[in-house]
């Protein structure tokens, strides 16, 4: 059964130095408040996995919390590069960053295989490209019926997955809606999980019998953090802060401006400070 905790307690109990951590969200519902809490609690030597590492991973990489990144597209969507990620890969600052690189299709299948308790996933992919030459985890199987050779990737099984969702009910059932990405799979594939939510309600108010719900007993810790996806967004609550995504380019470009931003906006703050970004669409 899901346990209701403060975000600080949830991170303290569930995220450990050296863990394989997935913070997922495909543009939507990215768990920024939780990422900041991981920075404040000074976790080290993490391996981060995520299809689309964006600003939140740029921040974790920039503070030196990350030894390795497993990913398929690392950029600031619609803006450009992730400067902290590039600095770590290209110049080893503040610590060298190893990368294990896949395609989106492979990563999505790898989470799906993890949720399905399979050791690997099969896809029609990686044909005629160079990634398999630099990633020994891209292998193949032969179809036992047709003889066709297909690509494989190992299942992703995070030590802990962290996501943000619209709401939970008091039993700990969680509703996701809109662009749901790979979050359900990432939680089901993980050993432990933390879900931050906009609100905790009496009635989940799922609009459809087929709504995307994580039942209470599949979730580890739940923390109410209104606004916790900012500058990402929460469908039905508040929009994406595109301005912040654009502003990040200048903040992250230099080490000093990045460090100053982290001090002021992460280290000197708490999860409650995200509440200012919370709102609910009419």
């Amino acid at each position: 059964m899901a346990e209701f905790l403060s975000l600080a307690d949830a991170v303290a109990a569930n995220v450990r130095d050296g863990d394989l951590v997935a913070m997922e969200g495909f543009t939507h519902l990215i768990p920024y408040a939780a990422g900041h809490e991981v920075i404040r609690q000074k976790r080290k030597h993490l391996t981060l996995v995520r299809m689309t590492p964006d600003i939140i991973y740029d921040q974790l990489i920039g503070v030196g919390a990350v030894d390795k990144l497993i990913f398929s597209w690392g950029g600031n969507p619609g803006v450009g590069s992730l400067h902290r990620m590039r600095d770590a890969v290209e110049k080893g600052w503040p610590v060298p960053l190893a990368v294990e690189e896949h395609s989106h299709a492979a990563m999505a299948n790898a989470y799906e295989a993890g949720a399905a308790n399979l050791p690997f996933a099969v896809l029609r992919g990686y044909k005629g490209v160079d990634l398999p030459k630099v990633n020994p985890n891209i292998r193949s199987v032969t179809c036992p019926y047709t003889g066709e050779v297909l690509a494989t990737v190992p299942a992703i099984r995070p030590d802990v997955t962290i996501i943000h969702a619209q709401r939970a009910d008091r039993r700990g059932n969680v509703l996701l809606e809109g662009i749901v990405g790979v979050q359900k799979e990432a939680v089901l594939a993980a050993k432990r999980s933390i879900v931050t939510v906009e609100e905790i309600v009496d009635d989940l108010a799922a609009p459809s019998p087929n709504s995307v719900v994580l039942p209470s007993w599949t979730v580890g810790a739940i923390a109410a953090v209104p606004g916790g996806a900012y500058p990402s967004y929460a469908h039905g609550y508040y929009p994406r802060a595109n301005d912040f995504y654009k502003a990040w380019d200048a903040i992250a470009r230099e080490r000093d401006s990045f460090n100053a931003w982290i001090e002021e906006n992460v280290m000197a703050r708490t999860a409650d400070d995200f509440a200012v970004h919370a709102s609910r669409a009419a």
Partner: protein
Amino acid sequence: MSDYTPTEIMTVVAARALSSKDVCFVGIGAPSAACNLARLTHAPGITLIYESGTIDTKPEVLPLSIGDGELCETALTTVSVPEMFRYWLQGGRITVGFLGGAQIDRFANLNTTVVGPYDHPKVRLPGGGGAPEIATNCGEIFITMALSPRAFVEKLPFITSLGHGTGPGSRAALGVTTKGPTRVITDMCVMEPDPESRELTVVSLHPGVTADQVKEACGWPLKFAADLKETPAPTAEEIKVLRELQERTRLKHGGKQGEAA
């Protein structure tokens, strides 16, 4: 009319390549502008799909990211990302995939991964994302990229997504049955793979652009089709609809979206 920018003609020409029958896997930036321009002009029935899971979306404004709320709110339905890549892209349900990249070679292979050695890159680019499987699982591929010697190169340091490989037969030898890149739309010209050699060949020059200018902007010795044409200029209507779209976008979230990489 001549009142348009190189980027605008690139977008307009890309839009013209699409029809109402297409089911199109849309990338952010120029592809997104082109696909939505097509939808707002001659291809109202086109089905636009973004890899965030949004199917048959009809955004009023261009998204900044591949997963903006606008895409979901105006979609017929939104599926999970594993389903998008399994049932929809790998399922063979997409007629046209739109790609761009940092670099391209004469066989329309693309690099969006690294410049320099992979383990010690000079420039670490964002990576492949959906591109490796878009390039082989969509019916055909359109590419939009501004022409420059740094982008159109003799040899790619890294192949992120497959075009025509090393020439005729490359795709078939890998068991790939889709067409691959059928046209490359730049800000100066349109290229298509030569039917025999599969090498990208200029088939039309945009109005006012010369063959010499295009040759200079390309990193390999560029070939021209025997029946080289002039690209029809954008119509007033096309430019009007495109600018209105971008103005709506600017008003909604500031800046000129849909132009960034």
